[in-house]
């Protein structure tokens, strides 16, 4: 890529990133306020009198007209100020940081595990599709896609926590990563849950990408030039086959980050997902907006990284500045 092209490409991506975030924030602002209820309600309990409720509404600003709330929201957004939680009164950004320390390792480790499982199995399923184990892999991966993630979580807990007592059934150590062993132990089952579900669909992508490669002209040509089957597959096949797989990986990683909500709930993990769910329940707008902000940013960054990776691998994409935007 030439320098100017890179710069223009990066700027374009950055602009798309910013606009996406702004649109997401505004949609969220409106959606949250369309929900019946009031953030002040989470602060009062039965027995509170009307004056107390009004005081609580004043404190969180839900007594203001929507237009004024929106102006306040946009102006703090422009100052990159995510504010304080209405309910806990804790600053949103540091709290998100603490939650990311659970969600990001969970997602990344699950993702890596899924890749390690899925890539060899997917290739075997394609290359050995005529053997019994090739078919078994295909059938199992099909099954894995059909099973809901929380069910796998419950199954793993029943077997490995309740019956075998190898791993804890849920929760996160109170000292967090200060005790890495305990932290890893408590993430073992959640990671496996996500990895199983994710690798089920990944296997199918890898399998079909490999099948495309197997039927391609360049592989036949390479073999005609004297390369053995495995040489040809490794030298030409993997590189070509990985281009579509990488774009799928990007999408998978992003959706796992968001899909962690369910797994965090099943395992009672203090991650981004549980912060989001509680925030929605309590109409804690600053928390919900903050989580959405950061996760949108992460998803867009992942997409950006996948895009770049594809360009590095596929020379045909390198000089294109528009590329596949997602």
């Amino acid at each position, binding site marked *: 890529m030439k320098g100017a092209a890179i710069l223009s490409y990066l700027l374009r991506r950055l602009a798309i990133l910013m606009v996406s975030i702004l649109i997401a924030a505004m949609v969220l602002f409106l959606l949250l306020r369309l929900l*019946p*209820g*009031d953030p002040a*309600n*989470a*602060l*009062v*309990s*039965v*027995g*509170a*009198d*009307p004056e*107390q*409720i009004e*005081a*609580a509404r004043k*404190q969180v600003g839900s007594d203001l007209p929507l237009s004024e709330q929106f102006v306040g929201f946009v102006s703090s957004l422009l100052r990159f100020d995510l504010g304080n939680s209405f*309910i*806990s*009164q*804790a600053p949103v950004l540091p*709290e998100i940081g*603490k*939650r990311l320390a659970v969600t990001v390792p969970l997602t990344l480790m699950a993702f890596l595990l899924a890749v390690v499982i899925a890539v060899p199995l997917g290739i075997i399923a394609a290359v050995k599709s005529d053997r019994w184990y090739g078919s078994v892999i295909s059938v199992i991966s099909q099954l894995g896609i059909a099973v809901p993630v929380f069910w796998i979580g*419950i199954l793993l*807990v029943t077997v490995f*926590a*309740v019956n075998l*007592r190898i791993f*804890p*059934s*849920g*929760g*996160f150590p*109170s*000292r*967090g990563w200060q005790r890495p062993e305990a932290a890893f132990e408590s993430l073992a089952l959640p990671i496996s849950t996500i990895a199983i579900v994710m690798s089920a669909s990944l296997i199918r992508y890898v399998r079909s990408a490999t099948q495309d490669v197997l039927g391609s002209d360049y592989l036949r040509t390479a073999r005609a030039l004297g390369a053995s089957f495995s040489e040809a597959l490794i030298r030409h096949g993997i590189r070509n086959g990985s281009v579509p797989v990488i774009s799928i990986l990007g999408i998978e990683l992003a959706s796992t980050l968001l899909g962690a909500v369910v797994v965090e*709930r*099943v*395992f*009672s*993990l*203090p*991650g981004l997902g*549980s*912060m989001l*769910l*509680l925030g929605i*329940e*309590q*109409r804690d707008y600053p928390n919900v907006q903050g989580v959405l902000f950061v996760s949108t940013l992460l998803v867009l960054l992942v997409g950006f990284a996948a895009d770049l990776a594809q360009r590095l691998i596929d020379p045909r994409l390198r000089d294109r500045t528009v590329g596949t935007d997602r």
Partner: protein
Amino acid sequence: MTGLTTHAGAILKISRRNARTMTAAALLFGALAAGSVQAQDFDADATINIGSLYEPQNLDNTAGAGQGINEAFNSNVYEALFQLNDDGTVKPVLAKDYTVSDDGLTYTFTLQPGVAFHSGDPLTAKDVKFSIERVTSAESKSSRKNSLKSIAAIETPDDATVVIKLSARSISLPYNLSYVWIVNDTATDLTATEDGTGPYQLEDWRRGSSLALARFDSYWGTKPSSADVVFQYFTEATALNNALLTGSVDIITSVQSPDSLAQFKDNPDFTVSEGQSTTKLLLAYNDRVAPFDNIKVRKALARAVDDQKLLNAVWGDYGTSIGSMVPPTDPWYIDLTKTDAYDPESAKALLAEAGYPDGFTFTIDTPNYDPHPIAAQFLQTELAKVGVTVNINVITANEWYSKIYKAHDFQATLQEHVNHRDIVFYGNPDFYWGYNNPKVVDLIQQAEASANTDEQTEKLKEANRIIAEDAASNWIYLYPQIVVSAKSVTGYPLNGLNSQFFVSGIKKAD
């Protein structure tokens, strides 16, 4: 034998390290089981892990922290002048003594000497004044703010004396002061930190996960039994149950999923105890609107519902039938379950008398969490049998406050009421359910102005009888308070009054 099974979890942990140790441990525990079963052999350095579904939203009970903060902090981290005991009585704690003037308008409290805050500052009268004013201030979100509004002035003649002047007699003042945490008057940011006088101090709070307490070494009273207490918070009852099954928590403070009890009840490793809660499930009508402004209609609906059947369906053998808002742990409890007891035939007759021979249709607003949706469906079926059609409208807890509590925009609603001594709500005609009987309003006011607790109890018993006779609401049942623990853990409170959970006496066998 019980000794062996009790320690199965401990043995398992050891077995991962060393098989020989395991055999030794098994022998040791075997010997223990054969020998004494004395409970005094407890581990003073133990960490007690308490599993709960009620994570506090912040650490300040005047800032909307929710019921979870009472569970974790009342009498554990913060103490008050008085304490509401597990048996419903009130005892002085930070107030060593108090006197009341003859007109009942001046209370003079002498403070317990030698009390220090966790920060090291000594407790003084100024702290008490500051603490009470925190609850009565304009920003306070305490649900008890109202019950302290008769306080006209707080004086601090010296460091050990607090004088409270009232504008009207308030027999419940000591009781109401049990809700007022005494905090250091120099403390700041109490939503995320603490400075109390309790036997434990806050060590670490990880939002969404856990709250760790450590023994406070300069505590003025009886030293707490265990070194550390960690509240671990779960969002799912199943995950919480699994945590107890696998030994990552020692106690569940309040079991809310009756289905799960079987796995603990039939297991010798666990203790299941049932105490008294103050949580009542009720169908509250909007008594302001037709047809619920008609006492006959309310009485008919009370007779049409077989409360016991629902209680059995939801809780099995646990829980208690109630005939009014007052649970057995309130001093003015009387058994009113015979008033408008289940009798569908007389319900039909009453409906006809009230002018609804063919029944009517109404909507129940139902919170979306258990057991409300199931209970609503049950009511729908029961009332259909007397010709009344029920529509169910499921709403969130948050929406409930806007639509029902604040706007009174409803016909009837299912709701669990957790507060202790909350019959007083029937003396407030502006309360969400709009029950307005001048006799009850008077009785509840007079009760508060009583010269002694006997008089108060008589007045509230009378009010209790009237609301039951008026079928002011349809009281379905009283929740059981079920605590499940590992067999090795003892000394926890059994009743769930005001959601409190005193941890100071909890012991873990060595």
